């Protein structure tokens, strides 16, 4: 590893690697290093949420997305197991836990996020809780669930629901505990959440809402867990040998903030993925970027966004001005449900209204988020066949004021609005 690089990328995930690849399309010779705090080259985080990964002890062929030789062939230095502890944007230099310093001309922060730890437990108890954030943690889960008949999943969001789904497919008995009164509350309304709760129950999953893990009982391994209802105080002791916690993520931004880079929940960037400091960009899950379509800063961690961020950041780092203008969406099929969200699905503000399309009884439901007669986002259950139409309505800012009555009817074709209304 050199002591000075033209391009320094912190983070070896999809955002950092895509940025490196993009830079290399335009600058074949500029020195470039990727620093990763993991021990692995680029791998697919998506594969870590698939039952196949946990069924077989080895890694599936689709896990690693780059061959080891890809890095030297592309003149990219990959340095694994590196922890960055400081950044001096005036001197254009980072410091590593190993005591080394590296200078840069252009810096990309693609440092990702970390899982939130389960609160209120003694450190010894907390040691036994598993999280899914990276490959090493996934391997740890792999080891544990081989001989676990009952698995407790804590959390009601995306990763928790993915785990409920995959553990059911692996024929494990699953118990789900959430602190909230409904699932995926940060994104979905109560009706959408009812679909998820019903699907969990249909799949034989025992549910504890408004509840917390209060105590873990067991000597060398978890044997029982004490769950406490927040509202009633009722405590229930259940047998289980594995706990997987997925209650959200956070960015470890201490050294980033100390450098003078502006942060909120993530590292703030404009639509060019530039931070407030010159020659410093941010991309991927850690970036809270200005979304041109939503017209505000957004932090939405998913694979597709991270890859696009990396591409945009890479373009700008080689001086090719390029902005992020994409309607963000996420689509998955879990527990027999098709679940999608698209555009701005943040909590409702003063100007934002909602329109329900379909219903729980109908078996398909979309909650449209509307600002000034324009759809800005939507959450969808069993209506993913309209995803493309909604992306088009959002991206083009189509006025829907003339169709407010019809739009609630799921049989009314959204393409009709796309064809007949002004942008």
């Amino acid at each position, binding site marked *: 590893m050199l002591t000075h690089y033209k391009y320094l990328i912190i983070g070896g995930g999809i955002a950092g690697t895509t940025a490196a690849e993009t830079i290399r399309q335009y600058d074949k010779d500029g020195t470039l290093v990727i620093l990763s705090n993991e021990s692995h080259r680029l791998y697919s985080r998506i594969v870590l949420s698939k039952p196949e990964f946990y069924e077989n002890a080895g890694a599936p*062929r689709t896990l690693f997305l780059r061959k080891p030789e890809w890095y030297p062939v592309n003149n990219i230095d990959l340095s694994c197991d590196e922890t960055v502890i400081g950044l001096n944007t005036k001197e254009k230099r980072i410091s590593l836990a190993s005591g080394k310093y590296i200078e840069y001309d252009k810096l990309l922060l693609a440092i990702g996020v970390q899982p939130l730890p389960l609160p209120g437990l003694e450190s010894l108890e907390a040691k036994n809780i598993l999280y899914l954030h990276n490959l090493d943690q996934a391997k740890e889960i792999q080891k544990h669930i081989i001989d676990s008949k009952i698995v407790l999943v804590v959390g009601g969001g995306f990763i928790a629901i993915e785990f409920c789904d995959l553990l059911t497919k692996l024929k494990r008995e699953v118990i789900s505990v959430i602190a909230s009164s409904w699932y995926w509350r940060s994104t979905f309304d109560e009706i959408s959440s009812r679909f998820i709760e019903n699907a969990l129950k249909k799949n034989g999953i025992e549910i504890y809402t408004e509840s917390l893990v209060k105590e873990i009982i067991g000597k060398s391994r978890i044997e029982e867990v004490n769950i406490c209802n927040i509202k009633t105080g009722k405590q229930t002791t259940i047998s289980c040998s594995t706990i997987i916690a997925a209650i959200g993520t956070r960015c470890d931004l201490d050294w980033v903030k100390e450098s003078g880079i502006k942060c909120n929940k993530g590292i703030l960037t404009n639509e060019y993925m530039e931070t407030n400091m010159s020659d410093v960009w941010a991309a991927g899950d850690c970036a809270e970027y200005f979304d041109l379509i939503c017209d505000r800063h957004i932090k939405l961690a998913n694979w597709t966004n991270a890859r696009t961020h990396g591409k945009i950041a890479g373009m700008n780092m080689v001086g090719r001005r390029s902005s992020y203008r994409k309607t963000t969406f996420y689509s998955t099929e879990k527990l027999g449900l098709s679940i999608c969200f698209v555009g701005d699905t943040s909590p409702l503000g003063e100007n934002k209204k909602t329109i329900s399309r379909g219903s729980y009884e109908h078996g398909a439901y979309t909650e449209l988020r509307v600002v000034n007669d324009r759809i800005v986002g939507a959450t969808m259950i069993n209506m993913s066949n309209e995803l493309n139409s909604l992306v088009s309505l959002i991206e083009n800012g189509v006025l829907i004021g003339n169709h407010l009555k019809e739009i609630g009817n799921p049989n009314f074709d959204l393409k009709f609005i796309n064809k007949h209304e002004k942008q």
Partner: protein
Amino acid sequence: MKSNKYSITIDYEACIGCGLCNEIAPKIFTSDEQMKSKIIDNALIDEELLLKAAEECASGAIIIINNETGEKIWPKDD
């Protein structure tokens, strides 16, 4: 979908609709109403791009079989 040499299948449940395959091989892949990957009818298959799209698909959703030999080109079984 069949070309002369390859059968290409999209694992629809696995596909996350990220659009990478379409970016790498726009003459082979497009998107459907659900924004998921779809193979273009009568696509002209560039073997190198097809394999690159499959290898880089993070959800491992592209399955390629060699019609002549019956060999599974991607994902490999080893």
